């Protein structure tokens, strides 16, 4: 059925008023149709949609792994130790929090393209290449929030640990453990940033179907093509992903508190 026929068949109550109200009806029908088709794409197991989801999970998993591996220890060191140039470094990290994704894409592109210093590794238009860009986006978030979590930890806790005999690694781990909720929040925030970005994935991944097409780049493409329902399907999946992640975090926090 054509979109116009569906609009005519709709039971929209605004239609009787004519003019702008009719336009409003067409919009509502268009939206509801998009949602219906979107859900049918999800539940029918549309391969294109699920491929984008799989690429997104693989990519974000890889970039988050690297981010957390480097970001948590470095953020801890940034918050815990005092050293010359610390405030300048904090300022730099805070500035990188708001770096535009296309700028990151541009710089990483320059490095990993054929003419760049890392060109020999052929990372452009691959998931690892995209993960480099996403790591650069996520790293400042984990660094800054972990450093803040450590800085805001009660100094009396550290003092108590020290007088109980803790030192070295045990002291570091205990302080980290006490700030785990904020560090978890930092990880979730960073994850949100990498799954929602388009610039890096588009520039470094090239939006290649079945290979580097992520949920966000697919939404951009499908909406541009007028395939609104596919865009909605992917959007709903992205929201579900975010919901599951946040639910898992809140579950872990509740379990930790119990």
């Amino acid at each position, binding site marked *: 059925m054509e979109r116009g026929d569906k609009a005519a068949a709709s039971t929209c109550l605004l239609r009787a008023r004519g003019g702008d109200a009719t336009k409003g009806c067409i919009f509502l029908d268009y939206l509801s149709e998009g949602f219906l088709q979107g859900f049918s794409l999800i539940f029918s197991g549309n391969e294109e949609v699920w491929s984008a989801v799989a690429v997104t999970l693989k990519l974000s998993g890889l970039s988050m792994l690297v981010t957390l591996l480097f970001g948590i220890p470095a953020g801890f060191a940034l918050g815990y130790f005092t050293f010359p140039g610390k405030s300048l470094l904090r300022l730099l990290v805070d500035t990188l929090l708001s770096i535009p994704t296309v700028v990151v894409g541009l710089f990483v592109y320059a490095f990993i393209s054929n003419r760049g210093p890392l060109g020999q590794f052929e990372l452009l238009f691959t998931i690892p290449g995209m993960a480099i860009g996403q790591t650069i986006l996520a790293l400042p978030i984990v660094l800054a929030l972990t450093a803040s979590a450590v800085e805001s930890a009660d100094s009396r806790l550290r*003092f108590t640990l*020290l007088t*109980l*005999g803790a030192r070295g690694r045990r002291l570091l781990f205990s302080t980290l453990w006490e700030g785990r909720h904020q560090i978890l929040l930092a990880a979730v925030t960073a994850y949100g940033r990498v799954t929602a970005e388009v610039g890096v994935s588009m520039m470094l991944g090239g939006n290649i179907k079945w290979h580097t097409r992520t949920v966000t780049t697919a939404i951009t493409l499908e909406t541009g093509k007028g395939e609104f329902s596919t865009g909605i399907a992917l959007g709903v999946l992205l929201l579900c992903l975010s919901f599951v992640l946040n639910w898992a975090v809140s579950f872990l926090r509740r379990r930790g508190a119990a």
Partner: protein
Amino acid sequence: MIELENLSVNLRTFRLESLSLRIAPGEFFMIVGPSGAGKTILLESIAGLRSLAGGRVSIRGLDVTPLPPERRNVALVYQEYALFPHMNVERNIRWGLRFAALPDDAHVHRLIDLLKLKPLLGRSPETLSGGEQQRVALARALAVKPSVLLLDEPLSALDPSFREDLRDYLAEINRGGMTLVMVSHDFGEVLSLGNRVAVISDGVLQQVGDVRSVFRAPANRSVAEFVGMKNLFPASIRGTDAVTEGGATLLLGKAAASGERLLGIRPEDVVIGAEHPGDSRNAFQGKVVSIVPRGMAFEVIMRTDGGMRITARVLSSALLSGGVAVGGEYWASFSPDSVHVL
């Protein structure tokens, strides 16, 4: 046991000035002073948690100044318990034992019994009352067998009933031979627990001595105000006579060095009555200007005909039976022995 020699700490906004103290083994030593006086900084300096600008800290005859906190064998308990929220009571108590060469399980059991923690062992800290949390914090600190227990206002955040209980526990721990150094800003707490006391204000040690002697005979205005000596009069002394700025003559219990000094009289030592006390020495007539309730007692503030403002602390029952009322004319009197020259 603990010896501080010219201890100085220089934080950006605060300085602890050249402080010297000696705390005997098994003593319940109190450090008091107003908020921001430097009491906690002093405690943390003993524990090795603050770097010193100068001076020396010795514990059991050993110079521990260059040693890190974990090698000083001192335990510190803060006002806000600082328990680990993700561990139950038993794991909290045993936390420090993982660093001990020979963990003493029997000692931990004794502590659990002493502090009555057995029914709480499996519980999470957040389900405990303030008093229970503080008992767990005490057990955790004592489990590592410190030679000194440092306490930073451990009773301040507790309800009065829990405070009484914890006072008893602390006294019990002290009777067991443990040296306790406790920071407080409540002189009532000091009187009920401490053997000796150091009064600090603005980072400077004002007075050290036996609790009762500091209470009765403070060294200067700052200490006098802190210990609640409300009647302070600048006076000119000649022998046993002291003439205040307002011209009133007070008789001293014993002769003091002549000169301009500060006189102090505790409000508990002042008697208020409707009749002249009979003895004309140190009796002044005046008008009661206000009566302020202070727990189980009242503070009666009187302005004498000579312009002196005298504060008396009167028990509620005495005040009610005596019929003292604001605006009435009364006599305030005190014995010559109650007049302290600061």
